């Protein structure tokens, strides 16, 4: 009997010690971690519109300064109309605007897609013509490093630049990830709606394509207003 009590006591004390250590670390470091996550998001937004190249090391101050000078945040409803933040409903969507000299250069859409192993989060920036992609970035994902994980790499993301979300007839088709190389797999007229796939990661590409299509469809009314020049 005393053995059981001893085991129980030991387990209880150890759990208490380990638990307090972890709580301490978690609460003590939370501030730094949240700061890192926020900074990383800002970095990604700036990367998507080409203000940062994602390779050179930049200080936190530079990122925050660039961000506050160029990026603004708005909410839109399902018809693509801007709603004031305090009156936003739960179906309203978040958009970031990249403006210079009082003119909108691009709008940035937060992307949340399913991946093969978990959620993929990132940003897609579309130029003020409402059709040309200015950049795509990923800040959080659970894909296999070296395979699906390549979605966070520059070589994959830079293929999005200059691609269109419209086909030749001007119909909305979104953007998709090809299975393999675009040049070999996709007919000439559709090549501008596809980016090169990642070898060994067809599933990641499939899920991300679906996620992009869904998100871009939700934002389509807003994009359309840009195409009709209703927003400047």
């Amino acid at each position, binding site marked *: 009997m005393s*053995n059981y009590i001893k*085991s129980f006591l*030991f387990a209880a004390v150890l759990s208490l010690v*380990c638990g307090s250590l972890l709580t301490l670390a978690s609460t003590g470091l939370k501030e*730094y971690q949240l700061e*890192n996550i926020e900074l990383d998001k800002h970095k990604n937004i700036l990367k998507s519109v080409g203000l940062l190249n994602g390779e050179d090391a930049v200080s936190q101050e530079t990122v925050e300064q660039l961000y506050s000078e160029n990026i603004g945040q708005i909410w839109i409803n399902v018809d693509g109309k801007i709603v004031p933040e305090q009156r936003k409903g739960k179906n309203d969507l978040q958009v970031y605007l990249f403006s210079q000299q009082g003119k909108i250069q691009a709008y940035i859409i937060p992307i949340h897609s399913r991946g093969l192993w978990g959620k993929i989060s990132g940003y897609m920036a579309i130029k003020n013509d409402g059709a040309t992609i200015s950049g795509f970035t990923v800040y959080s994902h659970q894909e296999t490093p070296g395979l699906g994980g390549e979605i966070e790499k520059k070589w994959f993301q830079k293929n999005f630049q200059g691609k269109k979300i419209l086909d030749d007839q001007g119909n909305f088709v979104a953007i998709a990830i090809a299975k393999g190389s675009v040049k070999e797999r996709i007919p000439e007229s559709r090549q501008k709606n596809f980016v090169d796939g990642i070898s060994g990661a067809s599933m990641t590409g499939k899920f991300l394509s679906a996620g992009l299509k869904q998100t871009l469809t939700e934002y389509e009314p807003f994009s359309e207003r840009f195409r009709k020049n209703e927003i400047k």
Partner: protein
Amino acid sequence: MKITKTKAFNVFFKPIWESNPISGQILGICSALAVTVQLKTAVVMGLALTLVLAFSNLSISLMRKFIPRNIRIIIELTVIATLVILTDQVLKAFLYDISKQLSIFVGLIITNCIILGRAETYALGNPPFLSLLDGIGNGLGYSQILITVAVIREFFGAGKFFGFQVIPDTFYAAGYENMGLMVLAPGAFIAIGLIVWLQKTVSKE
């Protein structure tokens, strides 16, 4: 007495080559497959594992006289898990970019057989200082194999070394192609198999 004959020396150096956890005991293969596509992640993973292994061996050895036998595995795992989560939290707070690259693999150190293996077979029966050495030695042995495999895979799979292109563009122009197999898991199996073969041949009992 020569330094190479002392117990501490043996405890530290044996696992690096002779009884290496990966190539000698075939432990911890799972992560050796996963993080060895690139050298950079392999190095950080090796460091993180060495750190966790050293401290888990040390703390378990310090408690070895009090740990009740019937719940020792649970105790060991609790200590290991705590250390791993602490490492992960610290990485996330101060080395956010590297922690993003390692993603889930830091968390997976908990399930690495080497750590539980060393706790069970060594730290539970030996004094703290030797256990610490054993932990560092095994960690370095693991890192050494990881780095070797990563060098092979990154070179043949991507033509790179530590992220720098080493195979010149003229080779590619002449028709050379990267081995896609090396980027995938079978590449790691083949590389580890070759290392095991080499090691068994060199250090014949």
